[in-house]
C-alpha cells in the first residue's frame, strides 16, 4: 500500500529564516506530487505540482520554491520566511493523469514569528 510522509509535524521559525519541508511517498512510482498551503479561513491553496523529477509547476508567485530531486521526494523551500508564510502545509500525491484522487500527508504546521 502507498504511504506519504511529511516532516516536521510542527515548526516555529523567525521571520527571515530559511525553510525546508520534505515529503516522501512510498509504494508507488512516478506519482504526481503537490504542495498545498491551508491558511485559517482560506481553504487549500495549490502552491506547486510536479509530474516528474525536476518538473515543477508554480501556481503562486511568492518567496517559496519546490524541488523534486527523486521520483518520490518533494521539497518545499524558502530562503527568507515572511509572516504571511504561516499556515498548514500539505503534501499530496496522485497517480499520473488521475488528479481527482489525491492522497494527502499529515501536514506541517508552520508558525512564522
Amino acid at each position, binding site marked *: 500500500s502507498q504511504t506519504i510522509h511529511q516532516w516536521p509535524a510542527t515548526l516555529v521559525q523567525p521571520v527571515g529564516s530559511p525553510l525546508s519541508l520534505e515529503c516522501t511517498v512510498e509504494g508507488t512510482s512516478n506519482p504526481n506530487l*503537490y504542495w498545498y498551503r491551508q491558511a485559517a479561513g482560506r*481553504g487549500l491553496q*495549490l502552491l506547486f505540482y510536479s509530474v516528474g523529477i525536476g518538473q515543477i509547476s508554480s501556481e503562486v508567485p511568492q518567496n517559496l520554491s519546490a524541488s523534486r530531486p527523486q521520483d518520490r521526494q518533494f521539497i518545499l523551500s524558502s530562503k527568507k520566511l515572511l509572516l504571511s508564510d504561516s499556515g498548514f502545509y500539505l503534501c499530496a500525491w496522485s497517480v499520473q*493523469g488521475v488528479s*481527482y*484522487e489525491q492522497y494527502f*500527508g499529515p501536514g506541517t504546521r508552520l508558525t512564522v514569528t
Partner: protein
Amino acid sequence: QKEVEQDPGPLSVPEGAIVSLNCTYSNSAFQYFMWYRQYSRKGPELLMYTYSSGNKEDGRFTAQVDKSSKYISLFIRDSQPSDSATYLCATPGVGGYQKVTFGIGTKLQVIP
C-alpha cells in the same frame, strides 16, 4: 469567478440527522467532482468522487451532481459525532488532469 464555491458554515446538527453539504461550480464542462473530509489538524482524505451527473452512494454518504444548476451535494445519513469535520468539495476543472481546485470547506459539527 472561482471554479468551486462553498459555504464555510459552521453547520451544527443533532446526532442522527441527515446532513446536506453543497457547492456550486463555475463551468458546465467540468466532469469530475470530489468530496474530501478533513479532521482538525489532519490532512484531507478522499471520501468519494463522481463523474458527470447523477448520484453515487457509499454507506451513509451520497454524492450528487446536478449539471443543470451546476450544483454538487454530499448527503450524510444518520450522522454521527465522528462525522464532525470539515468537508471540502473539489474539481480538476476542464482538462485539468494534473491539478485540482478545492472549495473553502464546510465545517460540520454533529452534536450527541
